[in-house]
């Protein structure tokens, strides 16, 4: 089953083309990494998928419905780029995570018992349950990251979209983070779309890779895609092959 389909999507800011004829499909259960250099249009593509930007040309389908007509936004979890998140905002971890239910609950309604149960479960999955009443400002970078993932999970999404979630994580936190994503993908059956400019260790964790630099350059399993030929086409310079064999 198709979770997401992009059909000949084009986008420009003024005269500058950002995306040209991008077609891509994400199937149920995929763990797709969207990689490409800075300024390659990755974040723009994500914003189009989320309905925050309208494509100049082309169509985007979420769960088979065009994004303009799509109403079940609670099925899509979103973890924004970290610089976009205000981590000085006065909130406890539980308050941040509870916002993930708001899309499901409806305007002007209070969260019910089921909602708080979902919040608790999401906190448990990311291992933040013991810190639920701490202010987010007191958490480490990795813990803050997990709090925002928990917020997306609290809505019990079928598709989780993460925009450069690795930024600012050290090696250990990164490893933990990928393990969490793999767990969500394998055990919880959540389809994942992760944007990254890091091609380092991605190949070991994801099921598919798509390379974007204004157009879709290549697309397939990590073994097929992550070779030096494709990467130098993507980044323009010689990049060593980083597909990790198991």
């Amino acid at each position, binding site marked *: 089953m198709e979770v997401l389909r992009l059909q000949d999507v084009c986008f420009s800011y003024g005269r500058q083309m950002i995306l040209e004829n991008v077609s891509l499909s994400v199937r149920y259960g995929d763990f797709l990494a969207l990689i490409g250099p800075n300024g390659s249009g990755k974040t723009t593509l994500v914003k189009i998928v989320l309905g925050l930007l309208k494509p100049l040309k082309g169509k985007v389908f979420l769960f088979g419905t065009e994004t303009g007509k799509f109403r079940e936004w609670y099925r899509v979890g979103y973890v924004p780029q970290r610089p976009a998140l205000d981590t000085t905002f006065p909130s406890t971890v539980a*308050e941040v995570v509870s916002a993930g239910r708001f899309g499901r609950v409806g305007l*002007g309604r209070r969260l019910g018992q089921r909602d708080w149960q979902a919040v608790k479960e999401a906190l448990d999955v990311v291992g933040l349950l013991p810190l639920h009443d701490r202010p987010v400002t007191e958490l480490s970078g990795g813990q803050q990251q997990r709090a925002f993932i928990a917020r997306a999970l609290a809505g019990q999404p079928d598709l989780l979209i993460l925009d450069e979630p690795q930024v600012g994580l050290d090696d250990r936190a990164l490893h933990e983070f990928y393990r969490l994503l793999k767990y969500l993908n394998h055990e919880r059956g959540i389809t994942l779309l992760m944007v990254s400019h890091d091609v380092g260790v991605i190949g070991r964790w994801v099921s598919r890779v798509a390379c974007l630099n204004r157009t879709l350059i290549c697309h397939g399993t990590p073994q097929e895609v992550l070779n030096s030929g494709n990467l130098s086409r993507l980044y323009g310079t010689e990049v060593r092959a980083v597909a990790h064999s198991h």
Partner: protein
Amino acid sequence: MLSMFQYDFMVRALIAGVATGIVCPAVGVFLVLRRYSFMADTLAHISLAGVALGLWLGVASALSPFLTLAVAVCGALLVDRLRMRQRVSADALLALMMSGGLALAVVFFGLARGAPVDVTSYLFGSLLTVGSRDVWLILVVAVCVLFLLVLLAKEFYYVCSDEESARVAGLPVDRLNLLFIFMVAVTVAVCLRIVGTLLVGALMVIPVLAALLVGRSFRQVVLISVITGVTATLCGLMASYQLGIAAGGCIVITALLFFVALYGAKTLLNLGRRSQTAGSSGQAN
């Protein structure tokens, strides 16, 4: 002290003061956290233009608060439109609208020369000029605004903390923003009778800044802001009565004292903690 309750005007001022002290910081929490602290001041100056317009046109005193409200709301809608267009940066836009409002007010006051009104009571707030009609208007607006804030608290919280994600979650962010700026405009327009144009913004901002020093959750920040706001308003009104000084100044100075006290307490507490951890790590060595 109790003698002040013998005067009707003082009882009216206290009732209006409590309402103002609750509603201003409650709205202010969202303004401060969205980094729109100057929005209240801007709308206050635009409201002042509304007051002055009423005087110039010779509008009956029963209707003039409604004219002020209407001008404030129009100003708010204009600010929101221009903010969406993004041709001017947000802070510059507020500066532009604020000076525009004040300039209009000065011109209208000038044209209305001879009107039997004390302009300073609008600038700095006054106890004597608060009529029973003003009190009713403040109460009605405060109740409506607080009702909306409570009803849509979670939506405003989400939009305020992460607008983009709120949009992705399917919340009607643009409409919520418009509603909110409308709520700020009506709050400012009615509350400036008590606190004054120049200081109504301060009552929206300072209690919140004080609360941010100590609040550990969003809920706590809202509660502490409101408690600080009400206490500062009541203490300020009493000081205003005792000393015969304009209400706005007394209220805002009291709020500032709360802020300074909490700031000092927090600094001392942090110093204490630091020396404690330094002491315990010294022992460990």
